[in-house]
């Protein structure tokens, strides 16, 4: 691997080789990862680095990082309510803090702070519960008054005449954003250097099971590949891939939109989220306002959503930040997010020997990428979950041990 550094950039003057190889698929691997997004590539990296597995392939039907990894609003935080969730996401945040050095790739992790706005008395109760729960679990989160929130984020409007006034905000200072494409590329380059074969334009078309029912191979558009372990990390397409092994999933795939404005000089120092009025916003290092919209109401694989979903988001943005009303939407795009009934992910063994699944991240998978890869690799290598992902099974939907972040936050009285 050609080491990256400021000095190397200066000396090489552009004389760089490929960041990863473009190998032909081999006939057999020790493990095959289905899906070349951030989570899949991170899984391959950790399988190779931490578990001594060298014959690993990542199969990507399109181009790496082309799914939700490259389509999200890059928010990273760990201020989740339930202990299981905050441990999971904080595991990732700790890895984010060293990721550029781990990968020797600048993923631009920017801990600029995430403000979550409370607009009603109920919001205040919910967010204060988050603050207390997080602090007990060693996750930073603090409560700000409306005035303190405005000081932290000057464009924020807190005047009393608003339809939904800002009553305060929860602030996680360690939270922030990162450069999404760099995460996929950085993991790809680091995994490739450890011998992982990253095979693009290779769609999995079948999962082959032996007489005992265990996984023995995958069929792909580039031939059959034998392997005893298949890790499915296919985000919005998980149901489709798992169906190849005869497994029905507690998942639904929805379009999720995001948009950016034209670039402007820095005006927005942090990330602001409002669950009550459905908007989140930050400003990229390039200067674009990066704005997240909600999901459409119906399942879809079209990678585009309806205009009224974006307009609703911009109504909320303009209500909170009326100075931005003349700003202009430059680009809008859609991803396909896989959503579980309790809005928490599944990182687990599937009910088929040799089959593992990492899915259900919904609208918030990007933030978990480094932790998810680490935990999923552990689960695949040892055939048992790491304690952190042990609660995130498929079976919880049978037994009722749900980890319902959405229900915990969204019920109004």
């Amino acid at each position, binding site marked *: 691997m050609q080491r990256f550094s*400021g000095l190397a950039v*200066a000396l090489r*003057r552009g004389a*760089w080789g*490929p960041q990863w*190889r*473009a190998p032909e698929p081999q006939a057999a691997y020790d493990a095959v990862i289905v899906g070349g997004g951030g989570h899949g590539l991170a899984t391959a990296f950790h399988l190779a680095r931490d578990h001594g597995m060298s014959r690993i392939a990542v199969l990507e039907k*399109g*181009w790496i*990082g*082309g799914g939700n990894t*490259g389509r999200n609003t890059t928010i990273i935080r760990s201020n989740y309510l339930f*202990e299981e969730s905050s441990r999971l996401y904080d595991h990732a945040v700790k890895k984010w803090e060293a990721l*550029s*050095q781990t990968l020797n790739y*600048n993923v*631009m992790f920017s*801990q600029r702070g995430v403000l979550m706005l409370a607009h*009603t008395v109920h919001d205040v*109760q919910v*967010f*204060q*519960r*988050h603050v207390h729960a997080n602090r*007990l679990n060693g996750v930073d989160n603090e409560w700000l008054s409306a005035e303190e929130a405005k000081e932290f984020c000057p464009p924020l*409007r807190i005047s009393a005449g608003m*339809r939904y006034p800002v009553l305060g905000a929860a602030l996680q200072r360690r939270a922030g954003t990162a450069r999404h494409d760099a995460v996929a*590329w*950085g993991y790809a380059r680091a995994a490739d250097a450890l011998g992982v074969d990253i095979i693009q334009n290779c769609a999995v078309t079948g999962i082959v099971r032996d007489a005992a029912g265990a996984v023995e191979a995958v069929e792909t558009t580039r031939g059959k590949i034998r392997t005893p372990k298949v890790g499915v990390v296919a985000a919005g397409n998980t149901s489709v891939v798992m169906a190849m092994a005869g497994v029905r999933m507690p998942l639904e795939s929805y379009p999720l939109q995001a948009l950016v*404005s034209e*670039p*402007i000089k*820095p*005006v927005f120092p942090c990330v602001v989220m409002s669950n009550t009025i459905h908007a989140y916003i930050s400003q990229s290092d390039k200067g674009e306002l990066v704005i997240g919209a909600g999901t459409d109401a119906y399942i879809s694989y079209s990678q*585009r959503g309806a*205009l009224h979903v974006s*307009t609703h988001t911009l*109504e909320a*943005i*303009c*209500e909170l930040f009326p*100075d931005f*009303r*003349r*700003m*202009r*939407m*430059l*680009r*809008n795009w859609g991803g396909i997010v896989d959503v579980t009934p309790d809005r928490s992910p599944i990182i687990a063994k599937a009910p088929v020997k040799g089959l593992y699944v990492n899915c259900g991240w919904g609208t918030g998978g990007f933030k978990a990428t480094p932790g998810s890869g680490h935990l999923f690799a552990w689960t695949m290598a040892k055939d048992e979950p790491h304690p952190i992902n042990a609660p995130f099974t498929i079976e919880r939907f*049978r*037994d*009722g041990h749900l980890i*319902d972040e*959405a*229900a915990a936050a*969204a*019920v*109004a*009285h």
Partner: protein
Amino acid sequence: MSGAFRVAEGGRVDRARPVRFSFDGRAYTGLAGDTLASALIANGVHLVGRSFKYHRPRGFLAAGSEEPNALVRVGAGTARATPNLRATQVEVYEGLVAESQNRSPSLAFDLGAINDLAAPFLSAGFYYKTFMWPSWGWKRIYEPLIRRAAGLGRAPEAPDPDCYAQRYVHCDVLVVGAGPAGLSAALAAAEAGARVIICDEQAELGGSLLDETPGSAHAAWLARTLVALAQAGVRMLPRTTAFGMFAQNFVALAERVTEHLAAPDPRQPRERLWQVRARQVVLAAGAIERPLIFPGNDRPGVMLAGAARTYLRRYGVRPGARALVVTSSDEGYRSAIDLAQGGVDVAAIADLRAQPAAALADAARAAGLTVLPGSEIEGTSGRLRVRGARVRRATGGSAEIACDLVLMAGGRTPSVHLFSQSARKLSFDEATGAFVPDDAGGAIHPAGACRGVMEIDAVLRDGAQAGALAAQRAHLPTSAEVLRTVAATAEVTAVPARKPHARGRAFVDFQNDVTTKDIALAVREGFVSVEHVKRYTTVGMATDQGKTSNINALGLMAEARDTAIPQVGHTTFRMPYTPVSFGTLAGAARGNLFDPVRQTPIHAWAEAQGAVFEDVSLWKRARYFPERSETMHQAVARECLGVRAGVGVFDASTLGKIEVVGPDAAVFLERMYVNPFRKLGVGRTRYGVLLREDGFILDDGVIGRIAADRFHVTTTTGGAPRVLAMMEDYLQTEFSDLRVWLTSTTEEWAVIAVQGPKAREVIAPLVEGIDISPAALPHMSVREGRICGVKGRLFRVSFTGELGFELNVPADDAQMVWDAVWARGQDAGMVAYGTETMHVLRAEKGFIIVGQETDGTVTPDDVGLGWAVGAAKPDFVGKRSLARAAMKDPARKQLVGLLTQAPARVLEEGAQIVADASAGRRSLGHVTSAYFSACLGHSVALAMVSGGRARMGESLLVPMPGGDVTVRVVAPVFYDPAGERVNG
């Protein structure tokens, strides 16, 4: 005088109407009909911007919405100044103020240009490779520096005072683009009887026809056609960009209504969003000329040949004195000849192709122009404006040609954006050198240049056929199937972009400063996918979204990968076609129009009493009624004591109400709610709990049986819509055998709660026909009768623990009844109380609030409501889920009361609860409600605690920033545990 470069006559500008404007503080004069670009060029101004990364001086490349360089901030003051507008689209008006962006201190001398010197180190993706040492450096040093350097214009600094509007509209045929193809399509469709809308992003309809010489046949056709369209009732929308195409021909248009006016009517919206559902769409979006790739191709004065022609013909402005035309397509010859005729000295036509079309070369030579086939441009000279270009000839040797304009004609790229957004396929057309729509079936009809038909008469024919076919497909009577006969091939042949041989930087994406070397580097580094190259180099990601750069980038990628453009593919086209204001998209939704405000019939009275309101779902609810300078806590203490000692009145109108009627109403409620209802007597009420099918509490409320087949169901304030939707779902799809009808009556009934020991004496004189004596109307019963003379339903229920009544009266009569109650109550010392007091009073009694004690993960047993569950019932919604193992775990959180060791200490809602002070202690639960009870003289709290009911009497800790608070677990009933006070 409107500029030294204005030609004596011609163009569509109004020479009688000079317009004064300023750019970067200098005053200029243009003409009505000018864009800011044409007006500046008329005044000899070409340096208008600095590029994003290297801060290179830049001039106008184009004349339309594809312009990447000439981005300006327009408007004076803080609130209306708008950044990043294209000077080529800004229409000048008297007093317009514009300034350049991304430069300091000035356009001519920009300190940021130091980046240009460091360019060898700033190649594509350099930032991924560096800024990693030391590990804290990114946060403290590098990112702040990068952020400061990034961005183009400055955001507005005050709230936008303008308003925006939105319209929905249906039509038979929507025509996008009003050039020759679009106009002829609209005419044909309208003549066939279709309802037609035609829109165009420019100020005038006409497209490329606006560049025609006045008096020419095509100019005359334009004038005639506009009249005919108006007469046919076609809705014509200039300054309106179709920016997004969605499923089933749903098209979004953004109309700029007042931006071009010096003194707009304040009643007019600034912009308007049109959301059009069209049976058929004709896409006539035209084509965009491609720049050429050669070193120094970004210097001010290097311009698209077609744009130069537009400036001359449409605006009457010479973009320079002496031009070198560089072409790789036949198009360049026509532009050169037209410009020469218009008075521009054309130094030469340098054709990158070895063998130009003979006829065109001959025509050019006949017009006195020099043609240099097989040329290569080795570079340009000049600093803030091009001074010359170095041309290497096919015959060998190179020469410097002095010029102040270098005009590029790289062929035209069809604008397939909307077609592609409709999720249709594109195919590569060799003749055009670009992607064109793959099929013309269905309800979307590309026409003219956007499908590669470039010759004007063919375009007119093609448009007419497309319009006629669209009208036919919109189910209008026509006798014969309309055929599309115009071949979708361009007569223009262009060559794909190639890396120049000469040294020096050749730009592909002008705004984002992406060079040919960047693209080559990306491919060398393994970024093979077109999407990867785009993201790694940022080519095509600037505010022009690659309109002039994408196809050239594809050519360079194909070259670097030694393949062809079709194998490279193209990036996904996404909306919007050009940027759209947030305000246009948000429309009128601001302030109280952002979300509807629901107010109860008593709202005005509460407001007059000085109530403080809170938002609960869409409702405004009175939270407390401060007297004089009371704080909330003082007011709440007074209200609580008033209710407990005498009587209080509370507006409970926001409660959801559903009338459940029919012979099977009781059976239906039994299946929906956990409680039994069949045996509930007429005139009796029951507290009902509703679960989701997963076993968790969704809602609760009091349900009264009005008649054998009629129930009055109440829900929580926020839960009413979802409860009704859930009931309808089960009734229509699962229990469709039941004869039951559901009606929302939330808005029909106002609810006046009268609570307290003196409640009966207050209401007694107001009630007619109902015996309200304790024996006749016991706790948890309901009667119909007259209240203050109007028909009402009187509930005897209590959410306070006191004797209580809820007067349900028609909303229209509510204020009258309220006034009567209030007047009667004065003798009894009645207080009006709000939601905060309601919360305290019910917490003292341990009554839960769904959404406060419960959070979507709570079962009836968890909150001590196991008694309500009709265990004998075979089934109800959620019953099966309650039988799962996790629901019976003794460690589940259960509702308890907490008392603080220090009686005055009020816990914080949401605070966590732990067993001890050990390190790494885990949460046992959390505080759900906490108040100071004025009646009891100490704080009370409700909490959900793991295994809580087995912990009665235990001491637990509540960790707070100032130290742990010790609490004792008690039963969750603090006041009147025997429950005697409801009996009055």
